[in-house]
């Protein structure tokens, strides 16, 4: 019955579901920190990304051309014939067009550039991944999301759909919408990517996380974006 209901919910138009950003589940002080760009430490990374962008990228791109880009990633990458996420896209640009070694995943320069590019889409709705070539990865993401894993034998569904809004230790379980990445997490005392967040959830159930940059994360991100389509981007968000 629960399965059936879940399927029915999936079939409804996105707006008919009661979806809430993790922002809504936060303490008022943390919300205030995100709302005010002067207090939001994520803006330090955005400012660094802006400097890097103006130094390394404006030969081929403008700030205006980056608006809306983050809202439609992961996207299909012709060169590799595979889906690619925004950080991967930026790395590929550095490697293919600037012809220098790309920055490592989760390195400060890549997080700063990604935060800056994603910030250009703040307030824009996440678009549904509609390129038919993305369909297999999207389905892989859906399967990963429903799969039980780790010593605790829990799936993402069990926490983020079945128990969203309830508490796990000190935290409220959010609905897992990827609206704010890269974001400043108080626990990290720094900015991190969606992949870092997903790794946290995977080790949380005592499973081996995929390596940074793994196709599985891109697949999960595609599915999460499909699920969050229409919700507004918040980069750089703040989370507990």
């Amino acid at each position, binding site marked *: 019955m629960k399965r059936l209901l879940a399927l029915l919910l999936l079939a409804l138009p996105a707006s008919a579901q009661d979806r809430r950003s993790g922002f809504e589940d936060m303490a008022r002080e943390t919300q205030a920190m995100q709302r005010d*760009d*002067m*207090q939001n*430490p994520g*803006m*330090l990374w955005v*400012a*660094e990304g802006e400097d890097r962008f103006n130094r390394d990228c404006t030969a081929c791109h403008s700030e205006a051309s980056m608006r809306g880009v983050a809202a439609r990633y992961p996207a299909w990458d012709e060169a590799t014939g595979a889906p690619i996420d925004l950080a991967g896209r930026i790395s590929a640009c550095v490697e293919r067009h600037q012809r220098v070694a790309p920055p490592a995943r989760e390195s400060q320069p890549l997080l700063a550039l990604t935060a800056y590019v994603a910030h250009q889409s703040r307030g824009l709705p996440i678009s549904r991944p509609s390129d038919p070539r993305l369909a297999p990865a999207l389905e892989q993401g859906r399967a990963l999301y429903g799969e039980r894993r780790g010593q605790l034998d829990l799936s993402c569904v069990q926490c983020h759909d079945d128990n969203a809004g309830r508490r796990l230790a000190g935290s409220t379980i959010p609905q897992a919408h990827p609206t704010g990445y890269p974001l400043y997490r*108080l626990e990290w*005392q*720094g900015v991190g990517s969606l992949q870092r967040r997903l790794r946290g959830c995977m080790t949380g159930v005592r499973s081996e996380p995929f390596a940074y940059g793994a196709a599985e994360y891109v697949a999960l991100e595609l599915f999460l974006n499909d699920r969050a389509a229409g919700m507004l981007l918040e980069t750089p968000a703040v989370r507990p």
Partner: protein
Amino acid sequence: MARVLINVPRSARRGDVITIRTLIQHTMETGYRPNAQGDVMPRDIIRRFTCTYDGAVVFSAELSPAIAANPFLSFTTVATSSGTVTMTWEGDNGFAQTETRAIEVT
């Protein structure tokens, strides 16, 4: 140089209470946390922040290891005359950074 965001009003009227806000990128390593190898990482914090307005100290703070990374400070002062607001952060490992902003008081 650490990255900073600073908000000092560009102009104010004499006698106005103005709010100054600063955010600085700094790890604020407590000196109590072990690293992946189990060794305690040495303390690396900002110890002191001072703000002067036309040479006079209007606000200062001692920071401690309990303060989170990337410390945000917000304080008020009274606009007295056009001049320079100077903000200095000092800390472990010789950390020292000074930023200035001009304010016009009418």
